[in-house]
């Protein structure tokens, strides 16, 4: 798509979408959002990129093949689910660690649940891009 306007706009929109997607991912546990939504939004950023500048550029920008991202995501989600077994809990039991907790505040939560959600994000992100890039390259 050799549209100057679209290319110029994409430059900002794609970045915004990526950042926004990460935001949606991280806050998802407490407000609407989460890995799915985050991953979908993130992928729309790159889809826009692919439409505006072509898949070749988009793939270059992504650096890693999207399939690989998706698979890594699946692996992360799986491992996040299995970690709990080492804590003698059934699998997929959330393990929570609070950074800098005080008496009144729990602190910053780091959890296997979050890691799981990151896996979900990567899967959705990678998979959607795999699909769209492959289709784009067919036409």
């Amino acid at each position, binding site marked *: 798509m050799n549209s100057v306007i679209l290319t110029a706009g994409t430059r900002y929109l794609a970045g915004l979408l990526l950042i926004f997607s990460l935001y949606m991912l991280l806050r998802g546990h407490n407000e*609407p959002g989460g890995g*799915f939504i985050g991953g979908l939004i993130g992928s729309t950023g790159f889809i826009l990129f692919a439409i505006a500048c072509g898949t070749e550029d988009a793939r270059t920008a992504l650096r890693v093949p999207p399939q690989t991202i998706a698979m890594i995501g699946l692996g992360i989600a799986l491992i996040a689910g299995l970690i709990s077994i080492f804590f003698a809990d059934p699998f997929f039991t959330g393990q929570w660690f609070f950074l800098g907790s005080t008496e009144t505040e729990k602190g910053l939560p780091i959890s296997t649940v979050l890691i799981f959600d990151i896996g979900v994000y990567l899967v959705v992100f990678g998979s959607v891009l795999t699909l769209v890039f492959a*289709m784009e390259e067919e036409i």
Partner: protein
Amino acid sequence: MESLLAIAIGVLVATSVYLMLARNVLRFIFGLVLISNAANLTLFVAGRLTAGIPPLIKKGEIAPVGPVANALPQALVLTAIVIGFGLFAFALVLMFRTYTTLGTLYSDEMRVAEPREDTVI
């Protein structure tokens, strides 16, 4: 409102069945989108409807105050939507590839895997 949506779901099902029964598999694809929506809505409605109270816990509370919408069907629908998307995407690509490989979108012209008797013998 549940009853009204039940009717809408019925219409969605009817239209999608009609589309799926078409010879052109592209219509099947459209039908698939419709019927997935119907199924998702069924699941959603089955959890009964609550207007205007999302299943979120306000800051400072430990549980929702008062009734909130049924969260479980929402989670299920969300899962179903995403799965439906995956299946849809594959089906779409399949029809695409079908056209580029077999040169037709008409299901009654797709007779490679199950050839007509008269053409084989």
